[in-house]
Each structure stands twice: as structure tokens, then as C-alpha cells.
């Protein structure tokens, strides 16, 4: 399909190991690779670490903490990329158990970052015999790491002359490493692309083989620039090969509990998905219609929450474009939610692959909302082309689209112009310019060099080099902690403002998503209610990443009578699914787990991550601040669009007659009020989480959680008030 390059390869080192032995979901060992020294080692998992942090991302954060110092930068050799599994990872009787969780220091936030991604990598890694893959150091030339889980062999080979872009690379690698067509399903590849080399917005693509389509598919570990770390280490790809997955590859303690949970969720999915979210038909993009209807769809750099042209990229469109009834849309064996849809036979109109017909993996909601709504490009073909090229180049569709939307607003406000953009007319809705910018970002050329730095660094350049208004850029530049916002408008949901701002890694919705519970259902009206929600839900979601699960089967499908049996926040927890997770954990590990203990497991990891931020010089109250665009109207245009609503709120809070005030004065008063509300929310959340008023976990909290390791205490003590 694609043109081949001249390539050469040389084996740098190899390592033999005892093939996998999984006992009750764990292997209790990690595979350590140092690319600077060409060393490969087996290392144990410390039982105290297992007890404290359970697995998955918990292990990843702990071992990254051990590997780096508070001075380590993302591109230092000592930074690691850690691929994590988790005890429930790989269970084939329950939906959504194939996730790989990845931990590294981020080029965007300069502190610990975590990703989760589908595909077959983590289950294959565990069944090969490893709870973690820990990669440190930096190779001199591009390398491929090959792990053969059946033969018990790891090889690092130098591989120059290969194009790093995902779709071009993985087609070649699967041919090289698979013995035959049937063997292709035994291979999973981690790759990235030139966009990750030339920007801070690099992703990792993790593959599985879609036997029905006879096509290699990918899912993305998208946020925080992990792909940029990967390419900075000169890793071209990690290829893992494992055959022999079976119903008891995890050697579980109590299969009956797993079967019971699996049958319950499967029945619900098959009976209810088509009348609930339609994940099996269009996946997460089903959200687009609802975000548009409830004024939460980001439009024109989060200025607005809906747009008359949104119907052009709504669910009906994607239902027609996505190929239906594809068993291969499950990104791990046994997942009945099957949400990894694709658009087949899409003809590319730009870029190096112009004219090729390709399979586009997606689009997901975030990609569609980001490129379609936020950049004002309501054109499904554009969304697909942007989706494909971002994946191929190893670029984060959320980071790129939020950055692009910011640049478009700057362009329309004459903060940047054609001279600065080197000819690109970056108006909202200009699909041609948007695609050209994606290609330039990937190549690290033209204005793409600046765009690829992400919103935080661009703001600095525009202020220092071009004299832009710093406050205005701070207000409209949608980043927090250095990471770009994902694609939801939060102006009318204080809880979600906190969900984004207080999140450990930055404003990504996977830590909490409370918009409807707060803004529409009004189920958490007080600060205490919101703080309780911002305690429970981020911790509950954290749990998926420590045991190796996908979030979607938790609440993207619900028991038919969930909202009748349970009320308020309790219903949002989906208690019967929480029960499933307790059964799964006990079924795999043999350890009984109550819902409260589940939260405690998460709380340890969540606090460790907050402390990691602290150790790296962040993690206090000032770093939880969000741009005002996330809280309310920055411009007159935004205020005027919802004038009646804002006037009414002002009337309730102001001690003056608002009729005598200009719009600018009203914006100023509303802003003061909303910023105060946000700070009060922070107070309530910190208090509920056992943190001090500066957002630092207290010594008492650390001791209660039993994570008072000497190195942890050393960090906390410096910040005690």
C-alpha cells in the first residue's frame, strides 16, 4: 500500500527470560530496559509496593518516582516510559479489560503524566510474564524493541531508514514479525510518528489486528506528550508477540465470580446499548449531539457551547460513515461494548498520502468536537482527514485541536497575522489552513514549529516576541498545568471546572466528568456536594488505571433500573457495576474488596501522584488555577449571546442596579464572583480530600493512607503549613 524506504537493522542486545507465569493476575516482576547502556534486566515488584499501590498506574508512578529526581526533565535519559498492566488486565470474560496504562514525565507539564489506551499490548505483556515494562535511557539511533512472550526473548535492534509514521511503520512490522496471516493477531505494536518528534504533543498508538477486516488497527495514548518522550528516546516501535491467550491466562482465584460479573455486564450491553448510548454503533461520538443540545460543545476556542452547523458532524452522519457490525471493533478480546469504530476506504485529499484510500480509526467524540466544533470546521471529511493524519504522525487530536482553536482566535483578533503564520489564514472554519498546519506541525516546519509547542509555550512567545496582551491570552489560552483542555465547555458547571483544574495531570476528562450531574441535573448544588463528587468520582476513575480496566463499561452502559433503584450521586456511581468490579478483583486476586476499600486503593495512588507533582515543584493551589474562559464569558460577544442568563445571575449577586452598567462592567463583576466561587470550591475539595489549604496532602492523610514512605514524607514535610 505504501512506498517502502531503504532500511538497515542491527541487533544491539538480546535477553532471555522465563516465559510468563501469571498467578492471580500478577507476575510480580518488571522488565527493565536501559537504552543508553543497551541493558535488559528482570526486576522484582517490592511486596510493600504491591500492598500500597495495587498495580497498574500505581506501580508506574511509584517506579517512576524511584527512577527520576526533582530535577529530571522529560527529555533527560533518566526519564522513563513505563507500560503498566494491572491484576484484572486481560480477563476475557468481562468487557474493557485490555487497557495499557502508561506513565512518564511529560514535555507539556514537566511532571508525572498518565495515559490509558486500548489495543492488545498490556495483556500480551502480562501473559509474557511482566507486570510492567520500564524503559529508561536514550538510544543513539532509532531502535525497535521486540518482545517474544512465548520464546522468552527480548531483542533491541537498531533500525534506520524506516519511516516512523504509524500506519506506514506498523504495516511493515507486522509483516516482518508475524509468521503468517493467523499469527498477526498475536502481535501488538506501540508506535508514534514524526509529529511526536517535532512537537510536544506526541502520542503513542497501540495496535491490535482486526482479523475480520484483515487490517491492523490502533488506539491512542493521547495526552501530555508521551509519544514525544518515546521518540526522544529514539524508540521507533515496541513489538510484542504472544500466542495462547485463554479464558484463564490470569490463573485466577475464583472463576465463578468473574463469570457472574461478565454475564451480567454482557446481558446489559447486548440488551440496552442500542437504546442507551449506541457505543456498539458509533462509539463515543454519540456525545456530540448531547453536548450541542445542552450547550457544552466547544465552539470557536470554547467561546460558545453550540453551533447551528453542528448537525453536519452529528451522530447520524457518523452512523452512516462508520462501517457497522464489525467484530474487530473490540480493542481487546471479549469486549462487547466494541466502541473502536472506523471509517473504511476514506480517500485522503492532502499531505504525503494524498490519493490513498485508508481506514480511519475513529473519529471519537473528542476529535470531532475539537476539530469540528472548536476549530469551527463542521465538515466530516475534514474531521476524518485530521484524525487520520494526527494518528499517523503521532499527534494528540485533543492537544492539536485545542491549540489550533486558540491560534484561530488569536488570528481573528490580529494577535497573529499572515506574516507570523507564514501565509496561513487561520480563521475559524478554514479546513485547508488547518490541515496544512497539521502537516507543518508534523514536519516541524513553518508556523507548525510554534504551533507544536502547545498553548502554554505559544502564549509566552506571543507575549515576549509579538507584544500580545498577556492577560487576554491567559484568559483564552485553554491550558492548565501546561496541558490543553479536552473538549467540554465548563462555564456553567463549577464542579467540572474543579474536575479539570484540580486533576493531577491537567485538564483531561478521564479524572472526572460531572457536567450533567452539576449543570443540568443540579444534583450537587452545594460546595460540600460538589466536593464529595470531586472526591469520589476521580478516585473511582483512578481505580480503572491501577487494575487495568477501561472506564466505558462502568457507566456508558447502565442497568435498566439503575436510576429507579438508586438516587442522586448514588445512581451515578452505578452500584451494581461497582459490585461487578469488587467481584472481579476478588475473582482474580482472591482478596475480598468492599466498595470503600476500592476507593482507598485509588486514594493511595491519587495522593502519590499529587505528591509527585509537589516533588517536581508543582502540586499546590496556584497550579490548580484555570483560565477564565473555562469559568465564564471573557468577551462582550460571549456575554451578549447569553445576556439574559448572565444578567439574571448578576441581579442575584450584585448590590447595584445592573441596568446602569455597561457589558464590560457586568463581565468584570461576574468574573469576580465566579473566580471567588472557584476558590471556595478548591477549599471544599482540598478539605474533603484531606489536603491543607494550599492543596498539599497533610501528614495525617499520608499516614492514614499508609503511604508514609520516607521519600514521600520528605516531600510532604517541606510543605507543611
Amino acid at each position, binding site marked *: 500500500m505504501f512506498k517502502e524506504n531503504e532500511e538497515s537493522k542491527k541487533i544491539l542486545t538480546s535477553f532471555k527470560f522465563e516465559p510468563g507465569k501469571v498467578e492471580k493476575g500478577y507476575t510480580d516482576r518488571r522488565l527493565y530496559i536501559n537504552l543508553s547502556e543497551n541493558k535488559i534486566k528482570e526486576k522484582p515488584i517490592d511486596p510493600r509496593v504491591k500492598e500500597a499501590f495495587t498495580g497498574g498506574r500505581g506501580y508506574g508512578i511509584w517506579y517512576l518516582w524511584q527512577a527520576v529526581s526533582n530535577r529530571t526533565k522529560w527529555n533527560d535519559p533518566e526519564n522513563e516510559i513505563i507500560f503498566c498492566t494491572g491484576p484484572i488486565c486481560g480477563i476475557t470474560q468481562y468487557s474493557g479489560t485490555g487497557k495499557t496504562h502508561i506513565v512518564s514525565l511529560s514535555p507539556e507539564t514537566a511532571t508525572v503524566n498518565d495515559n490509558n489506551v486500548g489495543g492488545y499490548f498490556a495483556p500480551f505483556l502480562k501473559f509474557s510474564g511482566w507486570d510492567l515494562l520500564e524503559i529508561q535511557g536514550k538510544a543513539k539511533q532509532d531502535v525497535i524493541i521486540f518482545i517474544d512472550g512465548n520464546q522468552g526473548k527480548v531483542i533491541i535492534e537498531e533500525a534506520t531508514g524506516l519511516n516512523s509514521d504509524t500506519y506506514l511503520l506498523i504495516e511493515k512490522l507486522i509483516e516482518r514479525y508475524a509468521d503468517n496471516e493467523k499469527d498477526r493477531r498475536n502481535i501488538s505494536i506501540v508506535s508514534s510518528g514524526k509529529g511526536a518528534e517535532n512537537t510536544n504533543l506526541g502520542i503513542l498508538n497501540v495496535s491490535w489486528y482486526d482479523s475480520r477486516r484483515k487490517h491492523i488497527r490502533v488506539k491512542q495514548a493521547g495526552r501530555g506528550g508521551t509519544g514525544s518522550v518515546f521518540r526522544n528516546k529514539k524508540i521507533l516501535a515496541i513489538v510484542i508477540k504472544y500466542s495462547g491467550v485463554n479464558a484463564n491466562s490470569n490463573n485466577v482465584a475464583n472463576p465463578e465470580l468473574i463469570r457472574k460479573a461478565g454475564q451480567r455486564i454482557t446481558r446489559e450491553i447486548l440488551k440496552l446499548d442500542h*437504546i*442507551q*448510548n449506541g457505543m456498539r454503533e458509533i462509539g*463515543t461520538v454519540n*456525545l456530540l*449531539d*448531547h453536548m450541542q*443540545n*445542552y450547550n457544552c460543545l466547544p465552539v470557536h476556542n470554547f467561546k460558545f457551547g453550540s453551533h447551528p452547523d453542528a448537525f453536519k458532524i452529528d451522530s447520524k452522519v457518523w452512523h452512516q460513515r462508520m462501517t457497522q457490525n464489525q467484530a474487530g471493533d473490540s480493542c481487546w478480546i471479549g469486549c462487547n461494548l466494541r466502541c473502536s469504530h472506523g471509517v473504511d476506504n476514506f480517500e485522503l485529499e492532502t499531505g504525503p498520502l494524498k490519493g490513498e484510500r485508508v481506514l480511519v480509526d475513529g473519529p471519537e*467524540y*473528542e476529535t470531532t468536537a475539537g476539530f469540528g466544533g472548536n476549530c469551527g470546521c463542521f465538515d466530516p471529511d475534514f474531521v476524518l482527514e485530521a484524525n487520520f493524519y494526527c494518528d499517523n504522525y503521532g499527534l494528540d487530536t485533543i492537544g492539536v485541536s485545542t491549540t489550533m482553536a486558540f491560534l484561530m482566535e488569536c488570528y481573528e483578533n490580529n494577535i497573529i497575522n499572515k506574516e507570523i503564520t507564514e501565509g496561513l489564514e487561520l480563521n475559524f472554519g478554514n479546513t485547508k489552513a488547518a490541515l496544512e498546519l497539521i502537516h507543518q506541525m508534523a514536519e516541524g516546519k513553518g508556523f507548525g514549529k510554534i504551533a507544536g509547542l502547545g498553548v502554554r509555550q505559544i502564549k509566552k512567545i506571543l507575549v515576549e516576541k509579538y507584544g500580545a496582551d498577556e492577560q487576554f491570552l491567559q484568559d483564552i489560552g485553554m491550558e492548565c498545568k501546561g496541558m490543553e483542555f*479536552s473538549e*467540554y465547555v465548563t462555564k456553567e458547571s463549577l464542579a467540572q471546572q474543579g474536575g479539570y483544574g484540580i486533576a493531577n495531570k491537567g485538564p483531561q*476528562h*478521564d479524572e472526572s*466528568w*460531572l*457536567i*450533567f450531574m452539576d449543570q*443540568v*441535573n*443540579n*444534583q450537587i*448544588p452545594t460546595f460540600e456536594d460538589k466536593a464529595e463528587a470531586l472526591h469520589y468520582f476521580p478516585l473511582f476513575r483512578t481505580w480503572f488505571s491501577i487494575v487495568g480496566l477501561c472506564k*466505558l463499561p*462502568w*457507566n*456508558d452502559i*447502565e442497568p435498566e433500573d*439503575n*436510576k*429507579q433503584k438508586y438516587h442522586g450521586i448514588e*445512581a451515578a456511581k452505578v452500584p451494581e457495576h461497582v459490585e461487578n468490579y469488587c467481584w472481579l478483583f476478588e475473582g482474580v486476586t482472591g482478596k475480598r474488596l468492599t466498595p470503600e476499600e476500592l476507593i482507598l486503593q485509588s486514594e493511595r495512588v491519587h495522593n502519590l501522584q499529587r505528591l509527585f507533582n509537589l516533588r517536581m515543584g508543582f502540586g499546590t493551589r496556584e497550579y490548580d488555577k484555570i483560565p477564565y474562559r473555562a469559568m465564564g464569558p471573557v468577551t462582550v460577544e460571549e456575554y451578549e449571546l447569553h445576556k439574559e442568563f448572565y444578567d439574571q445571575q448578576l441581579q442575584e449577586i450584585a448590590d447595584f442596579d445592573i441596568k446602569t452598567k455597561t457589558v464590560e462592567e457586568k463581565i468584570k463583576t461576574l468574573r469576580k464572583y465566579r473566580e471567588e466561587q472557584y476558590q471556595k470550591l478548591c477549599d471544599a475539595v482540598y478539605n474533603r480530600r484531606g489536603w491543607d489549604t494550599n492543596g498539599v496532602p497533610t501528614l495525617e492523610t499520608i499516614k492514614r493512607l499508609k503511604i508514609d514512605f520516607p521519600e514521600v514524607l520528605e516531600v510532604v514535610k517541606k510543605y507543611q503549613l
Partner: protein
Amino acid sequence: MIKVNGRDREWEENLTVDLLLKKCKYSFPLIIVKVNGKYIPKEKYKDTLIKDNDDVQVIHSIAGG
């Protein structure tokens, strides 16, 4: 005046659940409606009248991101 999800809203004559959902632009298909705490099944939205001072809950069962 009625309450919808705890917020005040003008009441009008002949206001049914169905009409209220339209006026609020509550288009999400998975909702649970309760009037004064009593669950209203979907097939009764058109026939159920909302009286002045009623307390209406419209809970959206949406999972989000």
C-alpha cells in the same frame, strides 16, 4: 412558579411533562422524570399535567467523557 431540578421556572396552564421537556430543550433520550417525587413513565409524558408549585426532577442518565 414550578421547580425544575431545584431551579425556579414559570408555570403555565396546560403544561405537560412532554411540553416542559421541549421548553427546557431536554432532548437526551435517557431521562427519568419525577413530579413531586413520583416517577412518570415515558408513555405518560403527554398526558401528565404539571400543576403550579410542582417540583419536577429530570435526571439525565449521561455518562460523559
